[in-house]
């Protein structure tokens, strides 16, 4: 808790980095940095969205046939799970802003649980597809889908959801780190920047899924 006291003396708090002139500048810099990072993330995913658009435009019937292999109930459930995790993430930041550390930690834990739930559901989806041979590229052995090159649909599906899943896992790692720091009382109204920028990242991961869900599960 020592970091969240009033700082009237000459000694800056531990979290303050000397090359900034004040806390406002430090926080705004961190947020700007995270937004620039999110921009790179959007273009990173963007390459795969581009591949999706091109192959969907080339083989629309195959995409519609192949998407029936995905279970929209699982995808829809995962969408709701991620949205809930986004709500709790946003509320957690609010708790630290209001100096309610315990509540903030609890909301982070709920966010983490949601992320884990998402990955468990994903695991069941993946293992089913592995089982029936709906695998990417040259490992594709399933025979029940009409159309040109259905393995490309599963390549793009696994690449996009896989990359998204990696982002969820990274996010979970960062949230665990936040929980450990928050328990030590590192965050409060004066300093909650790590939680805030992680929140930005987490919402972007949610946003990507908001697009992946209809593109794969609903309209192929």
């Amino acid at each position: 808790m020592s970091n969240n006291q009033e700082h009237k003396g000459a000694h800056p708090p531990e979290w303050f980095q000397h090359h900034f002139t004040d806390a406002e500048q430090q926080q705004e810099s961190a947020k700007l940095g995270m937004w620039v990072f999110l921009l790179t993330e959007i273009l990173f995913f963007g390459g795969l969205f581009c591949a999706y658009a091109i192959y969907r435009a080339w083989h629309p019937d195959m995409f519609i046939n192949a998407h029936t292999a995905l279970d929209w109930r699982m995808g829809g459930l995962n969408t709701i799970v991620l949205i809930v995790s986004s709500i709790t993430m946003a509320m957690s930041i609010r708790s630290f802003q209001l100096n309610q550390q315990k509540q903030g930690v609890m909301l982070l834990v709920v966010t983490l649980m949601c992320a884990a739930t998402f990955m468990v559901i994903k695991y069941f989806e993946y293992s089913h597809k592995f089982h029936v041979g709906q695998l990417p590229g040259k490992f594709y052995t399933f025979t029940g889908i009409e159309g040109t090159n259905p393995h490309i649909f599963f390549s793009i599906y696994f690449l996009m959801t896989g990359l998204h899943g990696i982002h969820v896992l990274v996010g979970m790692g960062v949230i665990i780190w936040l929980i450990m720091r928050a328990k030590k009382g590192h965050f409060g109204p004066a300093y909650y920047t790590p939680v805030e920028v992680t929140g930005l990242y987490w919402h972007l991961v949610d946003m990507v899924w908001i697009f992946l869900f209809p593109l794969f599960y609903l309209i192929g």
Partner: protein
Amino acid sequence: MSQLTDKYSHHAHILPLKVYLGIGGTLIFMTLVTVAVAQVHLGPFNLLVALAIAVFKAILVGLFFMHLKYDNKLFAVIFVSSLAFLGIFISITLFDTLRRGDIYQEVGMPIKANSNMYDSLRVAPAHGASGHEGATDKATESVTSGDDSSGAKATGHEGTGNDSGGAKDTGHVATGVESPKSGH
């Protein structure tokens, strides 16, 4: 920010809880709506409706969860410009992939098998064109620029990697893409 007491503190914009819960509820509701609409067969409009709902949800997440509505407008500029550049990337690439062969159909042909380009090569030219520069390059070159480079001893990929390259190019034409996009 000139006073020392202000130096290590700042004034955050704290939203009331009901905003987060309300936005979250709307997002979940819209998820249910998009699932419901997808069960109705609307033809191409399914795509439009689903994307419109997804965009609406993304805007809500951006404006409220990511505080774009309240924060420095620069962040919104960054976010929108990333989408703009992504739009440029996808739309121009699609412009190519959907319009190949629009203006004229290229009739490709293999580089002449008896070209003196191959005189000094022990390896016979199995498939004319080769891998890494894209087979069309070579075919076009031989057709349009009158073999002015054909005297040189071909090296490298021409000599070493062409079996697989040529075979793959043949496979390419049979991919079901409507317009023939390369000169084979």
